[in-house]
């Protein structure tokens, strides 16, 4: 199959959508499909994978509440058309199609069957409402809408109407599979390890919810170690901590992928105290894949990732922002190894459904459904009731 993927954000700048497009492209290429990616590029002389075509130099623009690196204008427009013409794609898969960048322009220029994936959960309504009549005829070309989470789906429903099929983000879970080795983060029965991942100075990552819960946790389990991995001003955060909590906390700063994997594999409990703004909890999937029992705030995005199978959710939750509830939940988990190993097993199983193998297979099923429908649409040029026959005046007796 010839697949065209379009990413609206600069491909050589790290970001969730970019990684998603890259992983999808590499997965389908490995399966023998022909994949082309069109995306803005920040550094035109930098190293890019062979499948990427530049839609033009990315320009930093303030859109939807944050600065994004996008492309637009006549140069992009002609590059989009040329890429579509040369690609002869069977299906065109656009990411974030209502962002003013390459995806929207490809949608506008396309004649192939279009699949669109919506990633964001916080689309500003102002821009969408203003542009809606302009966008409508273009968005009508989309034959299948995918949302990466329930929250992304409700954004689509609210702003575009209609529905979207949920296919979660993929994670290469194999990288996290527990190795059974002891690492420098491994805890003991007396000194169990709590892990936190994320920017330490960003309030919505919720580190303060966890540090406020620490005194009560230390009262119950004096030996507990809190390992905090993530960039931010360590001295400032550390200075503001209660001395007892400071002594029990190790700040690693920004960590390498290998250290992140080791930390998650070793943690006795992975705590995700995020307070909001999460569309999808990739880090929860990574923790589950690494075999870390998960304790998360009860954000919709998180409860969706943890699921609710016949054996219950694959992780424990506590009321968002509620430090006393968090400390109570941590202490309970640390005191019941059986519950932790039960969550660990559930988590390992749950993580498998987010593996790229499973996720890419679903995306492929969407492509096939859409191509199936597009091939059938003009049933037979003669039989197909075309524009003229629909316009024909109803004969007498017909309504």
């Amino acid at each position, binding site marked *: 199959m010839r697949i065209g993927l379009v990413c609206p954000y600069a491909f050589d700048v790290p970001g969730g959508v970019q990684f998603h497009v890259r992983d999808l492209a590499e997965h389908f290429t490995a399966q023998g499909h022909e994949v082309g990616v069109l995306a803005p590029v920040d550094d035109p002389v930098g190293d890019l994978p062979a499948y990427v075509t530049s839609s033009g130099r990315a320009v930093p623009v303030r859109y939807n509440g944050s600065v994004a690196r996008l492309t637009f204008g006549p140069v992009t427009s002609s590059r989009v058309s040329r890429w579509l013409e040369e690609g002869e794609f069977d299906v065109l898969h656009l990411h974030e199609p209502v962002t003013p960048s390459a995806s929207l322009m490809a949608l506008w220029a396309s004649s192939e069957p279009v699949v669109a994936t919506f990633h964001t959960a916080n689309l500003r309504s102002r821009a969408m409402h203003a542009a809606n009549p302009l966008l409508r*005829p273009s968005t*009508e070309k989309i*034959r*299948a*809408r995918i949302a990466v989470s329930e929250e992304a789906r409700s954004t689509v429903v609210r702003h575009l*109407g*209609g*529905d*979207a*099929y949920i296919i979660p983000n993929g994670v290469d879970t194999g990288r996290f599979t527990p190795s059974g080795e002891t690492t420098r983060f491994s805890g003991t029965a007396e000194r169990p390890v709590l892990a936190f991942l994320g920017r330490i100075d960003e309030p919505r990552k919720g580190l303060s919810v966890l540090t406020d819960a620490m005194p009560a946790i230390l009262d119950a389990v004096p030996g507990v170690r809190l390992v905090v991995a993530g960039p931010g001003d360590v001295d400032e955060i550390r200075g503001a901590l209660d001395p007892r909590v400071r002594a029990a906390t190790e700040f690693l700063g920004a960590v390498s992928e290998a250290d992140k994997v080791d930390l998650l594999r070793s943690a006795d409990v992975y705590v995700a105290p995020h307070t909001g703004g999460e569309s999808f909890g990739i880090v929860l999937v990574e923790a589950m894949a690494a075999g870390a029992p998960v304790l998360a705030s009860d954000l919709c995005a998180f409860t969706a990732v943890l699921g609710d*199978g*016949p054996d219950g959710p694959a992780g424990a939750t506590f009321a968002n922002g509620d430090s006393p509830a968090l400390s109570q939940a941590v202490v309970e988990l640390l005191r019941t190894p059986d519950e932790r190993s039960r969550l660990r097993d559930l988590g390992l*199983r749950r993580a498998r*459904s987010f593996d790229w193998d499973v996720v890419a297979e*679903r995306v492929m*099923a*969407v492509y*096939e*459904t*859409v191509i*199936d*429908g*597009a*091939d*059938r*649409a*003009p*049933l*037979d040029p003669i*039989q*197909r*009731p*075309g*524009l003229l*026959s*629909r*316009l*024909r*005046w*109803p004969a007498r007796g*017909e309504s």
Partner: protein
Amino acid sequence: MQVDILQVATIVALVVLAAAWYLSYSASRLDRLHAKVEGAVSALDAQLVRRAEATLELATSGAVDPATSLLLADAASGALERHTHHPLSHDLLDGQNFAGREHTETDLTDALKAALTPETVAELRADPQGPGSDALARVEASALRAQMARRFHNDAVREVRRVREKWFVRLFRLAGRAALPEPVEFDDDLPPAVVD
């Protein structure tokens, strides 16, 4: 003030031209939307037929017990029969209401849910070379695609209906004789044991 007839006539002509262009543009947009619904409904139809066929194959594979087999075969042949006796016509929008197949498809969904318990699924998957495992995989694949196809179809229906509600579309009958497409609603959930 003197009225220049030529000027007025030019303006009137321009307005009429613009209106005519807009109407023909709307008509072709509507036609594209109708074609999209037709594609979506026939994709849904194809997946549902595949689902019923795969279920029948699973039932006759000998890999499930006779009672389960009978239950599945009954629901699957019900769905296939209904499909054969009430085919979607060539003009998929001509009186399109999915030919009243919602009930038989829901019945098939229910039968699959009842038959494919966690134990049965585990047993079928335990023998990857067996005939049951292959049929189960095809049931799963087609049920998943049917689920997608139905969502995409209903999205397309919503778009057509929104455009057709516009006053000028109704006044000038831009939809012509095409019937108003209806969303297709039935239970298409996959058996929980299969998803897990």
